[in-house]
């Protein structure tokens, strides 16, 4: 009963968001687009990093690979196939990264993902300069802002559905368990590495798709644009602010932070990174489990 009401509410919100670009001026469609992109990124990030506590800093590596795949293939293949290719490449990359780092302790993973975006950017740049002799590519796709927005909205809805379904399934239970104690989880019969790998692949594939869908926004793409590390950092802080362990946490964090960053980067472009850093520090000290958990705590505190 409660689930069906929640679903009805979510569906209504989705429908309202879908018709919004028909009413709103173009600027606000752009804002909604960027926001939906980050909500999807943060939710997908939290899907893996939330319960496992493996802090991934590789978001932009996958995001950039998605965008670059579209840039390379957009004139060769029909668009749906291009998206499929992007998803496939993201998936394979996640498998390789996951297989080599997820068996190891969390620290190795953090360190590896820390440099992964830079590694991919260097490799792509090198390849473009030395093998294909191009630097920078054009994306010619007949999409306007609201077309991209609708695609992202659909991806966001799918991401939430996946996150919801996982939360209710035995995989969700296993994830919580291995976040608590991997040894106990393994003795209960859980293939710890496989579950981590599975979630990392799902999460990374969605992130790759966000990059792929957003690619036509830029028209001109080069490695330094699509592999901008700020994307990883913003995704991370959005998910943490809202609470990475909860379904709606990343959304709650992403919406206000996106608007804040949008405003800040217009007003104080030079001080952006100082403010971003200060926010990180503030979150760690004040609400390490996110806003939603903080609200719960405060509520409980008042009751008792």
């Amino acid at each position, binding site marked *: 009963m409660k689930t069906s009401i929640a679903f009805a509410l979510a569906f209504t919100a989705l429908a309202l968001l879908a018709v919004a670009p028909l009413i709103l001026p173009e600027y606000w469609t752009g804002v909604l687009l960027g926001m939906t992109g980050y909500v999807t990124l943060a939710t997908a990030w939290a899907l893996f990093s939330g319960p496992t506590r493996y802090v991934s800093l590789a978001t932009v590596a996958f995001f950039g690979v998605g965008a670059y795949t579209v840039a390379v293939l957009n004139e060769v293949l029909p668009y749906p196939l291009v998206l499929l290719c992007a998803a496939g490449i993201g998936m394979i990359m996640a498998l390789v990264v996951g297989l080599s780092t997820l068996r190891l302790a969390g*620290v190795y993973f953090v360190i590896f993902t820390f440099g992964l975006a830079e590694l991919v950017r260097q490799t792509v740049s090198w390849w473009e300069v030395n093998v294909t002799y191009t630097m920078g590519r054009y994306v010619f796709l007949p999409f306007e802002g609201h077309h991209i927005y609708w695609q992202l909205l659909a991806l966001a809805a799918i991401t939430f559905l996946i996150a919801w379904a996982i939360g209710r399934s035995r995989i969700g239970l296993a994830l919580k368990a291995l976040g608590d104690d991997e040894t106990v989880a393994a003795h209960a019969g859980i293939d710890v590495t496989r579950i981590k790998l599975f979630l990392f692949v799902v999460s990374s594939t969605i992130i790759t798709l966000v990059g792929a869908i957003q690619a036509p926004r830029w028209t001109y793409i080069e490695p330094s644009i699509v592999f901008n590390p700020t994307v990883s*950092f913003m995704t991370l802080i959005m998910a943490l602010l809202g609470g990475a362990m909860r379904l709606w946490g990343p959304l709650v964090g992403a919406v206000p932070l996106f608007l804040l960053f949008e405003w800040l980067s217009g007003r104080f472009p030079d001080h*952006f990174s*100082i403010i*971003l*850093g200060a926010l990180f520090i503030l979150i*760690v*000290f004040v609400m390490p489990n996110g806003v939603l958990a903080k609200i719960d705590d405060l509520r409980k505190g008042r009751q008792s």
Partner: protein
Amino acid sequence: MLEHLINGLVLGGTYALVAMGLSLQYGIARIMNLSFGDTIIAACFATYILFSSFGINPIVALAIILPASYIVSLGVYRLMMEPLVKRAPDEGALEVDSILLTFGLLFVIQGCLLVIFGGGYISYSFMNTPVSVLGTLVSGNRLLALVLSLAIGAALVIVLYRTRWGMILRAVALAPKSAPLFGIDTDKAARMAFAIGGTMAATGGVVVSMFQTFTATTGVVFTMKALIVVILGGKGSVPGAIVAGLLLGLVETFVAAYIDPGLTLASVYTVFLLLLLVRPNGLFGKA
């Protein structure tokens, strides 16, 4: 060939030096410090200012920067790390907290440097006269950098392995839970290890600034390389950090010279991954 070997050793020497600092912070203070590289870069800028505005020789600058960085690191630990250490229920939670906190610190330091100095490449000319070594010409500042790294690194090794105080630090690194049973103040050891780690980073910064150009945003790359050296060498192992640092410097220099300068990071990562797959605990790490 010999020229690359020497350049690789110079670079590797500085990597080893800063990695020892990070290893102290991670191995003893249990803080995974992602703002480590920005400490290095901050010291680079400090040296640059002292040299170009006040005409202070970088070697003399060391005498100012080292105590200053010790005090600042100690302050950072007291103010920001200690509350986290006290609050963390287990080592994993502290790891995640410290990663996020120092990540924030990274942005704050980097942002401040950007606001003050802008994003351009910075370098200054100090002892830029070529010196002949075994028949090849090496610039004097590189040679000085190598000598300094070796001397300071050796000093640290002697302190760690030959003094009572070094033994205390090593005991805490090996067995943080049992060390208090022998009357060791682990909190104090952690504080000092973090501060010394920060000082090593600053030393590395002074040394690096003598022969390399730097920008306000290069800190991240240094952090990454220092982390890789620490992991490769084995968590908390000083000899490991030295060997891994030199190895990394050589690999980088040779890849840049013979394959492509754009692929240095890719090569470093390949070495990192291969070694992790073969020896998950690092070259000198214990299972």
